C-alpha cells in the first residue's frame, strides 16, 4: 500500500515536470519532419526528389541531436538546405530545453526524497531476519548501532538530520543498516521502516526532542500493538504518559548515569566487572578504581545532578551541590550558589571532600572544574561527565579517575535490553542484598575463565538447541551445565564461557551452578568468546560429543561397536569379581 502511493508520487512528479519539454520536442520534430518531406529536392531519376517521411525523420534525428552525418540519402537542393538550417537551430534549442528540464527534474528535492523513501522501503523489505528500528542517530543512536552491528543484528535508522544519515552511510558496519532522512513520528515512515512486520523486534526512540519520542512511541504502538518500544524520556510527566501507552521500556539517561555512578562509588568491583564485560577492555579487574566514601561535591544540579544527588542520598553519602541556577530546592540540600570555580569549590569545602563529580552539561566547564580541583586538592577522587563523543581525546588526557559518558552508558544499557534482556535481571540481582554477597565470586570466576579476549553475550534456548541433550536424558545420561561448558577437545579444560542467568519455566537462576541438570525448557544467557561460543553450539548438536563430555569416554558408534563394547564389558566383569 505504502509502496504504490510512493510510486504514484514519483511518476506524478516526473510527468508534471517532463510534460512541456516532451510537447516542445514533439512539435519541433513534427514541424521539421513535415517541412523536410514537403520541400522539393534536386530533380533526379525518380522524379521530384522529395524526401520520404522516413528519410526526413532520419535526417532530423541526426541533425537535431547534433550528430550531422551530412546530406543523406543524396545531396540536398538549395531549398532543402535552407529548411535544414532552420531544422538544425530549432532542433538543438528544443533538445537543450528538454535536457535542461530533465536535469532539473533529477535534482528536484521532492523527487529525490520520494526516491530515497522508496529505496529505503525496498531495502527494509529485503531484510529477512529480525531487526530493530532506531529513531534518532545522535551519539547514543550511533553507539547503539555500532553495538548492534558487533552482535550481527540489523538496525533500520531514521533521523531528521541529513548530515546524520550521510554519516550513517559512511560507517563500516558488519551488516548493512538502511537509513532514511525523515521525521520518524510520521506513521508512513515508520511503516516504511517495517514497524508492522513481525520481524521487527523493537522500536528505539532516541531523538533529542521529548515530544517527538512520545509521538513515535504512540504511533508505533498504534501501528503494531505487540512491538517492543524503548523510549528515551527524562521527565516524570512524559513517563506517566508513556505508561498508558503500554509495554514501553523507558530509558532515562540521567537516571541510568546516576545509578551507574552510585554503583561506581558504592560497589566499585561490580562497576568494574560490568564495565569490563560490556566492552571496556582497559578496565582493570584486579585493581578497579575505588572511590572513597565521605563528602562528595556535585557540580551541576540539572536533571542529572538531581538524579545523582538522590541516588547518593539513598546510600547515605553526604553531598554538597555547586550550581549557578536560582532554583527552589528542598532545605535539606547543602548548596553553594554560582558557577563551579576556585572560590565556589573552596566554599563547598573541597579541602575536606573525598570526591567530586564534574557533571554539568558543558564539556569545557567539566574540564575546567577538573583543573581547578587538581590545584585545590589533588587527592580528591574525580568523576567527570563527558557529554560529547568527539571530545574523547581531551577527556582521556585530563586524567580523571572515572570518565562517564551518558550517551555511551545509555547505548550500552539499551543494547543489553535488546540483545541480552536477561543480563538486566542479573544486574538487579547483583545490586540486591543477596546478590551483593556474590559479586566477589562472580568476578573471581570471570577472571579464571577469560584470558583477556573480548566476551560477548548470547542467549541460548534449549527448546530448539537441546534435542541432543533430551535424547541423552531419555537414555539415562543426564547432562549438566558443567558438562556442556567443558571443551570438546579435552574435557578437563573449560571453554571461555560464563553462564550468567538460566531461565526455567518463568523462574530465573542467577549465576547457575555447574552441577545444574539441563532440560529442554531452559533459556540460558551466556557470556563468552566467539570461538568458545561456536564450540559450545557444535557440542550441543552432537550427542556423541555430549556423551564424551559427560562420561569422559567415547560412546560406541554403530551396532557392531555397541555389541563389541557389550561383549568386552561382559568379559571384564567375571574377571573383576
Amino acid at each position, binding site marked *: 500500500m505504502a509502496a504504490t502511493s510512493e510510486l504514484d508520487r514519483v511518476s506524478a512528479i516526473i510527468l508534471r515536470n517532463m510534460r512541456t519539454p516532451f510537447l516542445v520536442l514533439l512539435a519541433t520534430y513534427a514541424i521539421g519532419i513535415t517541412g523536410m518531406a514537403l520541400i522539393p529536392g534536386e530533380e533526379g531519376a525518380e522524379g521530384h526528389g522529395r524526401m520520404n517521411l522516413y528519410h526526413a525523420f532520419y535526417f532530423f534525428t541526426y541533425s537535431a541531436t547534433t550528430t550531422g552525418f551530412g546530406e543523406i540519402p543524396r545531396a540536398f537542393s538549395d531549398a532543402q538546405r535552407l529548411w535544414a538550417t532552420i531544422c538544425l537551430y530549432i532542433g538543438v534549442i528544443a533538445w537543450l530545453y528538454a535536457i535542461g528540464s530533465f536535469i532539473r527534474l533529477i535534482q528536484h528535492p521532492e523527487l529525490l526524497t520520494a526516491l530515497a523513501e522508496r529505496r529505503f522501503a525496498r531495502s527494509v523489505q529485503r531484510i529477512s531476519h529480525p531487526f530493530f528500528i532506531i529513531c534518532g542517530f545522535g551519539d547514543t543512536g550511533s553507539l547503539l548501532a555500532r553495538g548492534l552491528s558487533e552482535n550481527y543484528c540489523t538496525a533500520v535508522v531514521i533521523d531528521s538530520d541529513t548530515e546524520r544519515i550521510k554519516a550513517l552511510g559512511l560507517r563500516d558496519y558488519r551488516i548493512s543498516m538502511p537509513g532514511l532522512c525523515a521525521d520518524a513520528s510520521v506513521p508512513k515512515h515508520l511503516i516504511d521502516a517495517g514497524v508492522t512486520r513481525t520481524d521487527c523486534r523493537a522500536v528505539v526512540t532516541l531523538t533529542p526532542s521529548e515530544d517527538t519520542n512520545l509521538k513515535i512511541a504512540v504511533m508505533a504502538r498504534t501501528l503494531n500493538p505487540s512491538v517492543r518500544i524503548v523510549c528515551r524520556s527524562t521527565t516524570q510527566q512524559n513517563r506517566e504518559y508513556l505508561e498508558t501507552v503500554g509495554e514501553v521500556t523507558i530509558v532515562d539517561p540521567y537516571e541510568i548515569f546516576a545509578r551507574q555512578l552510585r554503583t561506581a562509588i558504592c560497589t566499585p568491583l561490580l562497576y568494574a566487572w560490568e564495565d569490563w564485560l560490556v566492552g571496556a577492555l582497559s578496565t582493570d579487574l584486579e585493581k578497579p578504581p575505588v572511590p572513597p566514601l565521605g563528602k562528595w561535591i556535585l557540580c551541576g544540579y540539572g536533571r542529572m545532578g538531581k538524579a545523582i544527588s538522590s541516588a547518593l542520598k539513598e546510600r547515605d553519602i553526604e553531598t554538597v551541590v555547586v550550581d549557578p541556577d536560582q532554583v527552589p530546592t528542598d532545605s535539606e540540600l547543602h548548596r553553594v550558589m554560582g558557577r563551579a570555580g576556585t572560590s565556589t569549590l573552596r566554599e563547598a569545602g573541597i579541602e575536606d571532600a573525598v570526591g567530586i563529580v564534574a557533571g554539568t552539561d558543558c564539556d569545557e566547564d567539566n574540564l575546567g572544574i577538573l583543573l581547578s580541583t587538581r590545584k585545590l586538592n589533588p587527592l580528591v577522587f574525580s568523576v567527570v561527565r563527558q557529554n560529547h563523543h568527539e571530545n574523547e581525546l581531551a577527556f582521556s588526557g585530563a586524567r580523571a579517575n572515572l570518565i562517564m559518558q551518558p550517551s555511551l552508558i545509555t547505548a550500552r544499557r539499551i543494547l543489553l535490553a535488546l540483545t541480552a534482556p536477561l543480563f538486566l535481571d542479573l544486574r538487579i540481582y547483583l545490586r540486591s542484598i543477596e546478590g551483593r554477597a556474590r559479586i566477589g565470586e562472580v568476578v573471581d570466576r570471570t577472571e579464571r575463565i577469560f584470558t583477556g579476549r573480548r566476551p560477548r553475550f548470547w542467549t541460548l534456548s534449549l527448546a530448539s538447541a537441546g534435542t541432543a541433550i533430551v535424547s541423552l536424558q531419555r537414555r539415562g545420561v543426564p547432562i549438566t551445565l558443567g558438562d556442556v561448558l567443558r571443551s*570438546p*577437545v*579435552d574435557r578437563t579444560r573449560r571453554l571461555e564461557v560464563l553462564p550468567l542467568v538460566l531461565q526455567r519455566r518463568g523462574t530465573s537462576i542467577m549465576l547457575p551452578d555447574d552441577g545444574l541438570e539441563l532440560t529442554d525448557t531452559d533459556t540460558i544467557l551466556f557470556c563468552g568468546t566467539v570461538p568458545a561460543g561456536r564450540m559450545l553450539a557444535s557440542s550441543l548438536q*552432537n*550427542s*556423541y*560429543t555430549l556423551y*564424551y563430555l559427560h562420561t569422559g569416554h*567415547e560412546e*560406541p*558408534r*554403530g*551396532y*557392531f*561397536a*555397541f555389541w*563389541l*563394547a557389550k561383549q*568386552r564389558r561382559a568379559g571384564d566383569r567375571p574377571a573383576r569379581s
Partner: protein
Amino acid sequence: MNLEKIIFGFFIVLALTLNVGFVVGELANPGHHSLWMLFAALLVSLLTTGLKIGDRSQIGAVLLSTSLVSNLQLILAVSVWAVLEGGMDVVPGHDKMVAIVSLAYGALVANGVSVLMLVSDTLMSRR
C-alpha cells in the same frame, strides 16, 4: 586408543586399498585385473557397511551412504563379469573388461571419500 576406532579405520582403509589393487593396470587388459581381488574388495566393502550401521551422527550418515554407493558399484561390476559373454568361465573381452573396471573405479571414488571423511573427522575432534 579405542578398539572400535581401530577396527573401523582398518576396514575402511582396507576397502580402499583392495579396490585400488583391482583397478590398477591397463583398463581393458584382463590380465591386469584379478577376479579374486574384485571379490575381496566387494566382501570388505559389505563388511564396512555393516560396521557403519547404527551411527546416529551426521558424519555417520554420510559415511554409510558412501559405503552403500561403493557396494552398489562393486556388485554391478561382479554381476557384469558373471552374466555377460559366457560368464566367469571365459576370459572377458575388451568391452566387458572396460565396463567392469569402470564400475570398480566408481567404487574407488566412493571409498576415497569415505577415507577422507574418516580422517577429517578424526582431525576435527582433536582428542
